[in-house]
């Protein structure tokens, strides 16, 4: 990522590389406010090069074993902060968490996915990030740890705006916790002449509960979540009528930003297209399987 700063070097910093979570959290506590956490450095180094941040300490989590784990426990997939995106590109993720799989596939390119992490993409807190809307649609939670305690909060609401995140200086998002329920899902990104989507749509449909979250990213400072109840979607009713309701809702309630990548009205047009495509993919899959 680059915004166009003129610098060639990084600002000066001290580099720490703790060997355990405990050590990491102590360091974070000790240098609270003066430290940044780094895994692959995909986001952080770019921000530092741009002088958007100049931490005194950069704490690498690359040697922290607890953060490297990708495990299933109690119906939840826990993705450690140091799990690289490429590790999520597996067949089992594709089958069980299609929204996540597709979102990951849409992040940057394979070489960057070997370095970058899902939690890092979330923690970057940029409106055009792919992880955040996907995690919201899957109703994921974040485990946030600090020296003395840890807390679990819904991912939705964690990002407050560009570069602003609801995580304290002495805390780290240690894991993303994604519920493993019966879902269908997709992630669609419209990127034309940009690294980033000018609009994205994450759709996760919980088949047993018959409800869904359709999350629109890259079109406003924080993602827009639309639930079946918002659009009065009735699964027992005619699909065409439901789609019309969704379209009407989008028309009335979604007002995307105007920026360098695209104007608001074009984004709105693209959002309708992506949303309808997503709905089609997810529900067409259902029909095929029945």
């Amino acid at each position: 990522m680059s915004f166009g700063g003129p610098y060639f070097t990084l600002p000066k910093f001290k580099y720490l590389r703790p060997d355990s979570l405990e050590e990491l959290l102590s360091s974070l506590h000790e240098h609270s406010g003066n430290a940044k956490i780094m895994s692959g450095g995909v986001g952080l180094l770019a921000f530092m090069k741009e002088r958007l941040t100049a931490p005194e300490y950069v704490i690498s989590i690359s040697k922290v074993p607890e953060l490297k784990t990708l495990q299933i426990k109690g119906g939840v997939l826990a993705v450690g902060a140091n799990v690289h995106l490429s590790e999520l590109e597996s067949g089992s993720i594709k089958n069980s968490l299609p929204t996540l799989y597709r979102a990951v596939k849409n992040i940057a390119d394979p070489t960057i996915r070997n370095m970058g992490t899902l939690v890092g993409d979330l923690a970057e807190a940029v409106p055009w990030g792919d992880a955040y809307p996907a995690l919201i649609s899957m109703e994921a939670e974040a485990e946030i740890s600090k020296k003395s305690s840890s807390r679990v909060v819904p991912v939705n609401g964690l990002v407050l705006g560009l570069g602003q995140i609801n995580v304290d200086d002495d805390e780290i998002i240690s894991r993303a916790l994604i519920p493993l329920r019966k879902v269908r899902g997709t992630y669609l990104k419209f990127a034309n002449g940009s690294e980033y989507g000018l609009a994205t749509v994450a759709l996760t449909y919980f088949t047993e509960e018959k409800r869904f979250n359709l999350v629109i990213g890259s079109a406003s400072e924080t993602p827009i979540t639309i639930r079946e109840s918002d659009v009065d979607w009735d699964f027992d009713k005619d699909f065409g009528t439901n789609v019309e309701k969704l379209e009407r809702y989008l028309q009335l309630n979604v007002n995307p930003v105007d920026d360098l990548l695209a104007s608001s009205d074009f984004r709105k047009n693209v959002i309708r297209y992506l949303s309808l495509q997503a709905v089609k993919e997810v529900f067409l899959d259902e029909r095929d399987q029945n």
Partner: protein
Amino acid sequence: MNSRTVLGEKVPQVDSWLKVTGTLRYSFDISLPGMLYAKLVTSKYAHAKIRSLSFEEALKVPGVVAVATGKDFPFRLGIYVSDRDVLAVNKVRWVGHPVAAVIATDMSSAEEAAEKVNVDYEPLEPVLDVEKALEKDAPLVHEDLADYSVFPGFRPVPGTNIANEFNLVKGDVEKGLKESSVVIEDTFRIPQISHAAMEVQNSIGYWRPDNVVELWSSVQSPFATRFLLSKSLGVPLNRVIVHAPPIGGGFGLKAGLGWEALVALLSKKAGNRPVKLVLSRAEQMTSAPSRDLFLAKVRAGFSKEGRFLAYKAEFFLDAGAYADYTVNVARTAGYSAEGSYEIENVNVKSLAVYTNKIPTTAMRGFGHPENHWPLEQILDRAAHELKMDPVSIRAVNLLKPGFSERATGEKVREDEGNPEGVLRTAAGLIEIDKVENPSVPWTVIGKGLSMLVKAPSQPSNAAASAVVKLNEDGTVDVITGTGSMGQGTPTGLAMIVAEEFGVPLESVKVVQTEGVDTDRSAYTWQTVGSRGLFSDGIAVLRAIEDAKGQVKKIASAVFRVPEDDVEVSGGYVFSRTHPWIRKELREFANGYTFSDGTSVGGPVIGRGSYIPVLNTFLDEKGHGSNTVFHTYGATAVEVELNLITGEIKVLRAVQVFDVGKVINLLTLIGQADGGFIMGLGSALFEEIKFDDSGWVLNPNLTHYYVPRITDCDFEIKESFIETPQKDGPLGARGIGEHVMIAVAPAIANAVFNATGVKMNELPMSAEKVWREIMKQKPELFSKALKSFQESLKEVMAE
């Protein structure tokens, strides 16, 4: 030794191994003892007077050696018009204009200190639009235009913002328009784009204590750099040494003179210590040159049979703050405006215009991606009006080798190529008449093609030279002036040498593959204009002839036969009449030694040179003869256009060129594919965006998007026609730039043919195409959306 021919084969680049193993040394990798680092301080205003400049605080930063300003270096730079300063003097001309440079022992300190240089500006009214720049009371970007030195044939207009005016006149264009059955009139636009070479510009200057100026720099054309530096700084040519290691992409950005004058002068200022400047990507995209913005207002008339009767065009090239090279881009866009066609009446005015935007320079295609953008769309639009097809209207108007005359008055040579063959091959390969069905009803599939032709745009005396040395083990060293920037010229030259001597390719070393050095390499004017293989190739062939002559002379004494009976081929030297009298070529490399120890001859060193023949300057009407070869080509595409989102997706592409003679098939395919992808970038994505104050909004490769491999999920079919150029090296012509020229018009034509929507502006981003659909054919959008919505209902109804 063997005589296996390599010509026409697929041969990997001779420096492939060095490149893929990261071993090849670029100028960026070079570090000299005691080397210092420079950092630019750049303007925050598009146009402003420099009231004062203070750098006391910067000097206090530990590691800082000196700070230089424009007043330290009162020199003017430029290849065709010397309109550039080394650092801004008295006023700044664009946002990003370097006003000072900090020199420090390390890059970090230099960057820190650069922020502490204070410049007090008095803002002036900027001119940011090419048309406004031509208005009578427009602010002047260069008040002193009259004082600049100008290369013969260029015509700046002092007191205006016109950096060069070029006119091409043939016949009576108004009469031609009057007699036309169909007149197409429109305005076309291409934004400023970046070369986006992977390697940013970087230079080391070393003003040695003995007053020899030594440079290591990412330059395409070290001899031109040496010449321009010598001329600007008043240092004799043989006291300037330019080392030009291989470069990571040039595309015209690194032609001429870059940052070499600045680093040389900074080195002098820093007490004769070497100084290195490396641009960041953002500096590359704001303080260094880009390609011109192009605006064309055209009227084109056709007879009812489709004959191109008249072409009246005004080209405005927004050259930005400096037009040193762009004056020639504008001239070239003008004299080649007719493309591959014979037009009865032509009136083209082409202006290079100063504005307060980033400066511009040469870029791959040099005026041709610009002038083909309107021209090749006009033909499809006229064909549509006349109910003709795109192939027929072109075939009717194509230049006819051996018969036609260009608007410049230059005859079209019989051996110039086969434009009709190129056209028909491209049309055939893309199956232009075959209608394809889209996968979903809200998209359409369109096919389009565009012809192209280009000649090197170079001075009439753009010379080249070469030296060929035989080694005593049978290997051959070749010395030229063209280096390696990924274009493949060194490999092509090595293949020619291997072929001519009949030695294995591995036995030939083109020394300049690993870098050109003006002290030790053979002269060539520049590595630009697709001229490398042609010009250096001829010089190399002449050097081979010379070396063979020397071998024949020695062999004549050894064999005791006349010189003209001696033949050198297949790695052997033998008597033509008594072929059993033969010896290996290597035995003659350093002269021949008889079995008794006596020797004849001496080391064989062949020399060859080349200079264009019968080339002239162009006069006030654009008449003259200024080309050495023309390469014809055609690009054809099949695209899928989403009528709801405006997104264009290339499904298939065809690249056809008449190359005269295939030297290295692998290089050709690489050029054809790479050029298509580069053309695709400027067609669909690339645009340097400015705000109202002249700031670049996307000086980075995140928001200035060049195609990634993920954008290239389609097949490219390459086809090469061989109509030998009689005076070309083994019949070959250049190809380096041609491969990207026709991509954008071919895509625009595909969109037009599928929808009737005219795309006048680049890039054809999804949003722009969507807007044009909504403006020109809103019913297409509504219909597409409806079918998309219907498809959702069907899903559930099934």
